[in-house]
């Protein structure tokens, strides 16, 4: 399906091209074009924003192996509904994406059944066991764009050093889930007064910042780049800010839950608020917000982590970590704009331009000639976020029942309409 469309009257926001203006934009044959095609349909976007398709560089699609939680089809459908045209999926599937055959399987399913571009992330180590390097070259040839042992962070510092060095030779980004597991072991929420009151073993922020420090030291030692995933703690943010100031090649992301919620959401043993790293204190949340405003964070990613009731309707300390995030990320980030913390252009940077650039993938801009990956945002649309409205196969969100404002109403990926709430398909 290749549409010829001209969008008119919308606010076009493209920080890569330095554009933020009301204007027209045309697409034809799946690309953005300079000339309005003769028989183009005219779509009025007055009051709406037209931005490059959003890119989520940290999701879990669960396929292969845990299709009861999510599939590539349902996960990318959730992505498109959330305004995303591309996602990078973490390798902790079953089997682990640690070899080209698994990468090819993911690429093939995504090609045939996906509603968004899928960039697989390969494992740093075989089986994410932290012992030997996986075959980065083979996986890169099959389609991976980065490596990470997300969820099973590399303990051996020498292996991590070698991963940074070896990945550089294949021009692959290394993404670190920074967690010192000796300190977090047995913990299920942020360490503090609330963990004491609830009788839950706490996870100190030091478990995060210690490992962030190691990753920064290794990036500095090797001269290679590293990307720190889902940062939650003020202490870790300080380290990243300092490292950036002295020229370490580090980029960093946080997730919407870390700038929206605090550990208070856990009260009552709410497993929908259990994730790794855990929701932190109000001071940490404030630090995350400031770091989004001052540029310490490059990216907002969701860490979309679908789990079924089998993993979540259990005792808190036994519940799985993670929440779904693809369909709540944009509304939650729009609150930062309304709060005056970031501009709409900065939102587009965080959710589109920067992840494209860091992953080294196309997208993230509205330049003439690039594939038509577009998201139309209605920044004023008010709605209630409900389980029934989710396209993800799993409903483990702490935001169910929340009134929200602003969402993606149209998503186009490579010229194909992947989500439509404005009746474009009619």
């Amino acid at each position: 399906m290749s549409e010829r469309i001209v969008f008119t009257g919308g606010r076009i926001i493209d920080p890569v091209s330095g554009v933020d203006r009301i204007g027209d934009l045309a697409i034809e044959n799946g690309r953005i074009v300079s000339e309005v095609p003769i028989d183009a349909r005219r779509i009025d976007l007055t009051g709406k924003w037209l931005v490059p398709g959003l890119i989520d560089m940290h999701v879990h699609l669960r396929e292969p192996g845990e299709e009861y939680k999510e599939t590539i089809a349902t996960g990318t459908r959730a992505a498109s509904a959330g305004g995303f045209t591309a996602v990078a999926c973490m390798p902790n599937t079953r089997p682990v994406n640690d070899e080209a055959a698994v990468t090819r399987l993911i690429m093939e399913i995504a090609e045939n059944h996906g509603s968004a571009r899928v960039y697989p992330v390969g494992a740093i180590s075989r089986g994410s066991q932290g012992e030997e390097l996986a075959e980065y070259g083979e996986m890169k040839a099959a389609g991976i764009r980065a490596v990470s042992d997300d969820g099973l962070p590399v303990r051996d510092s020498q292996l991590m050093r070698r991963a940074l060095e070896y990945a550089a030779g294949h021009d692959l980004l290394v993404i670190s889930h920074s967690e010192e597991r000796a300190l977090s072991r047995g913990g299920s929420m942020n360490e503090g007064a609330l963990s004491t009151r609830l009788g839950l073993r706490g996870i100190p922020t030091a478990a995060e910042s210690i490992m962030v420090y190691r990753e920064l030291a290794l990036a500095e030692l090797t001269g290679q780049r590293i990307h720190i995933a889902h940062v939650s703690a003020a202490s870790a943010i300080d380290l990243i800010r300092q490292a950036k100031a002295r020229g370490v090649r580090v980029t960093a992301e946080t997730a919407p839950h870390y700038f929206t919620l605090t550990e208070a959401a856990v009260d009552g043993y709410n497993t929908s608020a259990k994730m790794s790293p855990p929701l932190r204190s109000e001071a940490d949340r404030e630090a995350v917000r400031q770091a989004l405003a001052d540029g310490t964070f490059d990216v907002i990613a969701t860490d979309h982590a679908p789990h079924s009731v089998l993993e979540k309707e259990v005792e808190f300390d036994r519940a799985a970590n993670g929440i779904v995030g693809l369909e709540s990320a944009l509304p939650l980030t729009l609150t930062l704009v309304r709060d005056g913390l970031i501009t709409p252009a900065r939102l587009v940077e965080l959710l589109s331009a920067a992840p494209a650039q860091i992953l080294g993938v196309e997208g993230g801009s509205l330049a003439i000639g690039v594939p038509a990956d577009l998201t139309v945002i209605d920044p004023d649309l008010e709605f209630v976020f409900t389980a029934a409205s989710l396209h993800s196969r799993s409903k483990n969100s702490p935001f169910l029942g929340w009134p929200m404002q602003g969402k993606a109403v149209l998503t186009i990926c490579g010229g194909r309409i992947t989500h439509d709430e404005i009746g474009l398909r009619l």
Partner: protein
Amino acid sequence: MTKNEFSFQHRHILGLEQFSPADLHHILATARSFKAISSRSIKKVPTLRGRTIINLFFEPSTRTRLSFEIAAKRMSGDTFNISASTSSATKGESLIDTARNIQAMNPDVIIIRHSSSGAPQLLTRHVKAAIINAGDGTHEHPSQGLLDLMTVMEHRGRIEGLRVAIIGDIAHSRVAHSNIIGFTKLGATVRVAGPTTFLPPQIASLGATVCGSVAEAVEGVDVVMALRIQKERQNDPLIPSLREYARFYGINREVLRGAADNVLIMHPGPINRGVEMSPDVADGPGSVILDQVANGVAVRMALLYLVLGDEKGGGVGA
């Protein structure tokens, strides 16, 4: 039992945190009224006749389970015990499924002990029966906290204004948590002491004062409570040896010299004699350890009575 105007509004007993001081006084008064039943030759009243009470224990327990069972039986309730070894837990059935299956048999009360903090709260969302927490993880052990309050009240006539020292593994003790909450709600001051590895983060937020040594903690106190210690938890190096613990944190006559003359000595049991407490202290003057056990039955009778309400059955003193 003397009827008063107070109405008990709690469907479940999850922890002392849920109670107001008035609630606590009401429970304690109810427990006192039940205590005499246990000293009669015929230790049975018909109050809970026809009521089904399930003891669902996912952790080993001798005295708490026995105490609940005796409490229920002395009120003519029908009790059934399910322990982790005989339940479906080992077959991979989830807690919620286990609870729903039990619910299908329509019990009135489920008394649960579980190694996970919050497990009783989880049950309340999935079953109709009243839930009584008999100890969850490192969260709370409300009936133990209540029996400790009752014991001190019995010996001192009040809680307000007393000074209480709790010594030992505060971080992993649900007993300590319930006691800190209960005693402070009723106006006592609570001090805690122990190896720093045994003190939970921000313990002061629960209302306790942290002391640097046992001697400092017991200085002038009316009540000293020692907690059972377990040397290792979750591969976490907490103390180097029981020997060193006993020397620096054990309760003995020497360290008690600074306490009030008639200081009450308490322990939730089971005691590691010679570790948390020297035998002469455990068995000596001021020790109310066995009173605690006796009061446990009365408190649990009161809790069963209160969650089931008094609208049915034969009345308390009948």
